[in-house]
């Protein structure tokens, strides 16, 4: 039975993978320049922030919640880290990084506490904190951006220099985060408990799962990772603006996670699928401008790819369920 599930999960990821290959072939056919190391580099640099936050969002979705506030958490961590770099240049860069992660975790914990304490749906809570945290961004910064001259050179170079194979530090960090998330979810008791909670929140406490603890954990992790993405934002773009940083980020991340096969009904989703979902949307965002698709059509294609990916995912899943039912009836 577990082998069958394993196969099923693999098949689902194979669907997304197939779509990535298919799109690459089609785009490469129209514009041969697309198939190049350069495209790989551009795509790799377009996804790290999304990938890091997607790991957190995935855990939240698996626990049958959602975190809409990550764009504002990203902005808050980013602007505070930027202000530390600006106002306390004597401190080592790592202080800004750690503060960004800690602040993200704190805001995430705040989300979790509201959800647990008042038994509010997370979609409502985080819709509220999406706006609340953005307000904090303006308040703490006085609505002033942190200009490029104040972002430490060493931080910016994390997006530009590479320790190995020309892969920038930023990309390596993102994939390390994904790998650690995989180890946590698949190889620790606490990780498995997130799936158990999301599959059946009613039965979870009966199975000895501390629902409050797991819920607080996933929101804190989502916040911490959004915070990490925040300081990476400063590295990637070289400045932090209170108004534009992370606006709409939550939609990009949730779309990628769901395309990656993570169920919004909880309990289902893998790190590999999420990584592929992020890659797929990242590739499309790079392919469209390279193909010279007009700005008017880019949104249309982006949306179409998301819908198509979900349809394929749905079809594959239904076929698996049917196969499972047939296997059971013949057995």
């Amino acid at each position, binding site marked *: 039975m577990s082998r069958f599930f394993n196969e099923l999960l693999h098949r689902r990821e194979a669907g997304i993978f197939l779509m990535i290959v298919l799109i690459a072939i089609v785009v490469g056919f129209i514009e041969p320049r697309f198939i190049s190391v350069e495209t790989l580099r551009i795509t790799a640099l377009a996804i790290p922030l999304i990938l890091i936050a997607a790991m957190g969002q995935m855990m939240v979705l698996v626990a049958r919640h959602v975190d809409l506030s990550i764009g504002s958490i990203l902005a808050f961590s980013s602007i505070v880290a930027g202000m530390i770099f600006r106002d306390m240049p004597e401190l080592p860069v790592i202080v800004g990084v750690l503060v960004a992660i800690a602040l993200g975790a704190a805001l995430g914990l705040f989300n979790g506490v509201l959800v647990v304490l008042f038994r509010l749906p997370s979609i409502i809570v985080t819709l509220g904190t999406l706006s609340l945290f953005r307000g904090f961004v303006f308040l703490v910064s006085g609505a002033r951006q942190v200009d490029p001259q104040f972002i430490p050179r060493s931080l910016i170079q994390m997006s530009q220099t590479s320790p190995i194979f020309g892969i920038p530090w930023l990309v390596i960090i993102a994939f390390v985060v994904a790998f650690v998330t995989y180890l946590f979810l698949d190889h620790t008791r606490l990780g498995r408990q997130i799936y158990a909670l999301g599959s059946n929140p009613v039965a979870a406490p009966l199975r000895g799962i501390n629902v409050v603890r797991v819920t607080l954990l996933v929101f804190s992790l989502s916040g911490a990772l959004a915070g990490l993405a925040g300081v990476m934002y400063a590295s990637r773009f070289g400045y932090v603006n209170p108004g*534009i940083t992370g606006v709409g980020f939550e939609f990009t991340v949730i779309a990628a996670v769901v395309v990656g096969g993570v169920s919004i009904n909880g309990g289902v989703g893998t790190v590999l699928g999420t990584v592929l979902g992020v890659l797929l949307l990242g590739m499309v965002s790079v392919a469209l401008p390279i193909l010279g698709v007009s700005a008017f059509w880019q949104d249309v294609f982006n949306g179409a790819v998301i819908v198509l990916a979900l349809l394929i995912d749905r079809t594959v899943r239904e076929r698996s369920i049917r196969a499972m039912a047939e296997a059971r009836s013949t057995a």
Partner: protein
Amino acid sequence: MEELRTMKNITKLAILAVGASIFAAPAIAQDPVNIVYIPKNTGNPYFDSLVAGFEDACKEINCTFSQAAPATAEATSQIPFITAQIQRGVDVIAISPNSPDALNQVLDRARSRGILVLAVNGDLVDNESHRDAAVLPVDFTKTGPGQVELLGSMIGYEGEIAILSATTDAPDQNVWIAAMEDSLENNPKYANMSLVATVYGDDEPQKSTTEAEALLQTYPNLRGIISPTTVGVAAAAQVIQSAGKADTVKLTGLGTPNQMRPFIKDGTVEAFQLWSPYNEGWLAAHFAVGVKAGEISNEVGGSFDVPKLGSVTILENNVMNTQPELTTFDSSNIDDFDF
């Protein structure tokens, strides 16, 4: 019970009194002119400088100043802010419009209440009748050609160039781009420069970055990029810096000195242009107070004196400019500016 009724009556009276004071306020001439400025969005350093121009003017002349802005620069995001200011009963609404036509109705409503409506920094292109006057930094018909000339001088007036803009419906951007296309087509000086692509980064850092990277990849012979938007030009500079292509691909555009300083210092960008947003706020405040006091008549061809700026003429379509030409920033002068 009796107490409750008294309370209700007092409340009613209070409401009436507040109502009366709102209606009475604009009638008194000596009151300072109440100006509100609505930038495109909050947290935009460019508009901070413009706001400072308003604030400094209102320290010296008879006006009070406040600002209100939406979080995002979407076509309709300013409408609720305009509505709120109409209800507040301000005398002057100065606005940097996010759309050339989405605001028409609400601005008409403001004007029907006697509010002076000024477009600042960007005009309601083709909808000029929905505002009283416009304060623009320079003659915007010069922006496009100015940018083409600057880039041309960097690349020896030869080769493929591209434009990285903001959103597809940004009115000022489209006016400039049209003028750039016109110069490239009709001025023989630019005969060897060809515009290969115009792309849009939506004033969003990630999108602008990806678009700039795609330009470099799709057009290996690209010699130059013009990005007439602060977010776009910063993103393109970062891309060129990362790719180490500062020698082959020249970049210019419209940016703020603080945003572009590191790229000028390290040679990624030779020069870019802008104007003084501060002077726009300064001029708009002086004009608004002058009109409200009856000292300036808002008529085409008229002129008036503004401290520090000298004589300002009201041009066709009731447009005023703060300076005749764009300011070019390069390594020689960038440290003289802080905005």
